């Protein structure tokens, strides 16, 4: 008994290393066993300063609110007012981000079109070209102009409602893409003009232009081909938002799309997703500053994406100066991606509902990120579209609720003065005061 007591007192408690944590060690073992980096889909999973670190300052005496259930709070937004003859008019400032046919199934693309159209907003193609499912079910379709130019042709360019020149994306700014062979069905192969079953690389930069001066000429060409009708968006990953936004404006963009590191991808290296790029919270204010410095804030519209989940996120992004947001991962979850009802099958794949990110392998139990006909058949595009419409409606209602509480009759009247920050980091990035103070790091005059 005495010995046991002695052992209890002198025994050290096992302490896990914060540096060599269990997930890190597991990755080291995986790397040692395979000799290859981890590839996955989705966006950054690490915790970064985000919209959750901001709060709204509802109205009281100094400002008065609008009646939540009676007074109007407008949500409409027009994109492409700078040069395009036919700007896009949306009922809500929440759009669907570009996701390719190939990474997603045809029915999933159809559902995105159905849901977006029912909610009065736009959807976006992605690498791999324009499908009839998506064009047919999207009242407003943005056609991405990507480095790979898979499926690119002037007829689809003219069938689009807007053109998005993709320079980069938040999950992998500076990186290209790879669609692994197991997702290259006959149809995907035909659309991309490549053999079935091979890995299809998407280049990291455009084949026929480099730099902002070339981009200006490329935009001129696209406008000439489409009769100056279509709004031209330029999409950038969030790394140097002030300079990249400035250069996109200089090149003639109607709309700048800015994607933070939480934005998803169909597939890339985990090390890329987690270690390259900035959180969207850190990107918005520099981009807005660039627009303001050029005298073009609101004339060139800013669409932000990467980690938008709730109406609060929508409202906060708009309050920081964005004109609209885009959602990708949230939209897939609304369609049924990572749904708990497939838990048994996720476990067979060595994962669990909510954590499944091997979208590139084409074995998605939910039938969304796959080209496998049996898995695709599980997904109903009509039901998926209805769920997406509902989700978009909730995002909008939530944002309106907050805007009314802050006294605004349009979501675009939200402003940085409506916000405070919970952390120093968020205060510095969003350039709004730390809660209870008038100060944020870097504020002039302090």
């Amino acid at each position, binding site marked *: 008994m005495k010995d046991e007591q002695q052992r209890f007192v002198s025994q050290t408690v096992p302490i896990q290393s914060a540096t060599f944590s269990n997930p890190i060690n597991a990755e080291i073992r995986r790397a040692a066993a*395979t*000799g*290859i980096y981890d590839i996955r889909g989705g966006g950054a999973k690490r915790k970064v300063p985000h919209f959750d670190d901001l709060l709204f300052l509802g109205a009281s005496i100094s400002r008065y609110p609008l009646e939540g259930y009676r007074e109007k709070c407008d949500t409409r937004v027009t994109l492409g007012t700078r040069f395009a003859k036919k700007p896009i008019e949306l009922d809500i400032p929440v759009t669907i981000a570009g996701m390719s046919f190939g990474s997603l199934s045809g029915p999933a693309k159809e559902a995105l079109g159905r849901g977006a159209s029912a909610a009065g907003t736009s959807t976006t193609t992605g690498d791999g070209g324009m499908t009839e499912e998506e064009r047919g079910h999207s009242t407003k379709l943005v056609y991405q102009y990507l480095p*790979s*130019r898979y499926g*690119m*042709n*002037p007829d689809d*360019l003219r069938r689009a409602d807007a053109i998005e020149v993709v320079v980069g994306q938040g999950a992998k700014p500076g990186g290209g893409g*790879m669609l*692994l*062979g197991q997702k290259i069905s006959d149809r995907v192969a035909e659309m991309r*003009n*490549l*053999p079935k079953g*091979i*890995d299809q*690389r998407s*280049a990291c930069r455009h*084949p*026929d*232009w480099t730099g902002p001066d*070339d981009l200006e*000429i*490329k935009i*001129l*060409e696209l406008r*000439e*081909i*489409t*009769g*100056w009708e279509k709004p031209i968006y330029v999409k950038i990953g969030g790394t140097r938002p002030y300079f990249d936004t400035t250069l996109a404006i200089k090149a003639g963009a109607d709309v700048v799309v800015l994607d933070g590191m939480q934005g998803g991808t169909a597939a890339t290296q985990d090390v890329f997703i987690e270690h390259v790029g900035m959180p969207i919270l850190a990107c918005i204010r520099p981009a807005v500053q660039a627009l303001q410095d050029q005298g073009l804030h609101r004339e060139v519209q800013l669409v932000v994406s990467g980690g938008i989940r709730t109406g609060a996120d929508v409202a906060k992004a708009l309050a920081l100066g964005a004109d609209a947001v885009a959602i990708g991962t949230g939209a897939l979850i609304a369609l049924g991606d990572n749904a708990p009802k497939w838990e048994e099958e996720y476990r067979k794949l060595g994962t669990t509902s909510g954590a499944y990110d091997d979208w590139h392998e084409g074995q998605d139990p939910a039938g969304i990120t796959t080209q496998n006909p049996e898995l695709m058949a599980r997904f109903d595009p009509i039901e998926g579209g209805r769920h997406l419409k509902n989700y978009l409606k909730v995002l909008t209602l939530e944002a309106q609720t907050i805007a009314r509480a802050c006294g605004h009759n349009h979501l675009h009247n939200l402003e940085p003065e409506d916000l405070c920050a919970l952390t120093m980091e968020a205060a510095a990035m969003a350039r709004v005061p730390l809660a209870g103070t008038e100060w944020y790091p870097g504020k002039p005059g302090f």
Partner: protein
Amino acid sequence: MQTFDLEARGLRDLNSTLQAQKDATNQTAWEIVNARGSHAIAVGLDAPIEVTVKGSTGYYCGGMNKQATIHIDGSAGPGVAENMMSGTVIVEGDASQYAGATGHGGLLVIKGNASSRCGISMKGLDIVVHGNIGHMSAFMAQSGNLVVCGDAGDALGDSLYEARLFVRGAVKSLGADCEEKEMRPEHLEILRDLLERAGCDAKPEEFRRYGSARKLYNFDVDNAAAY
């Protein structure tokens, strides 16, 4: 022959006029004067018309062309005939970078030399260069034929897919996964036809054929050093 003074009437007027031509148009012959290196000349055309540009052009002349025959009576700037779908573009002089980039169909003839990245990411287009081509040409070229009557620069056909490359002169170096291939009778036929259509009197037998070794088609960590 319709003559269009680009300096006097402007680019928008030019392209909208040419794009408005229909399949059955009687105005099939067009001449553009005072091109003066302008960008995006004759882009997005979609009718069987013949357009002659007097002088040299800037970026993207003939971009996304369908059906039209565009004759550049001078040299062409970067991205001539980019993403061409069908038709023909003929450059009397030299072509700058990215000639025929991502083209899906049709024929691009360059009677002088072409700079770097000629035929980059081409997807079915045929290109015949009477002179030499620069480095990194046919990078990630997917399908179609690139014929070079002169020499090719460094890293020809890097990361090539299924495009066929025919070179008569020297190749400074081959890119990753590009190798010399056997010239079979069907290739000589393809070459004979392209040379004839491009107005080139070189003999098919004088060329060597290059294509993809297909070793990098599926990612394998053991090949990482090849990139």
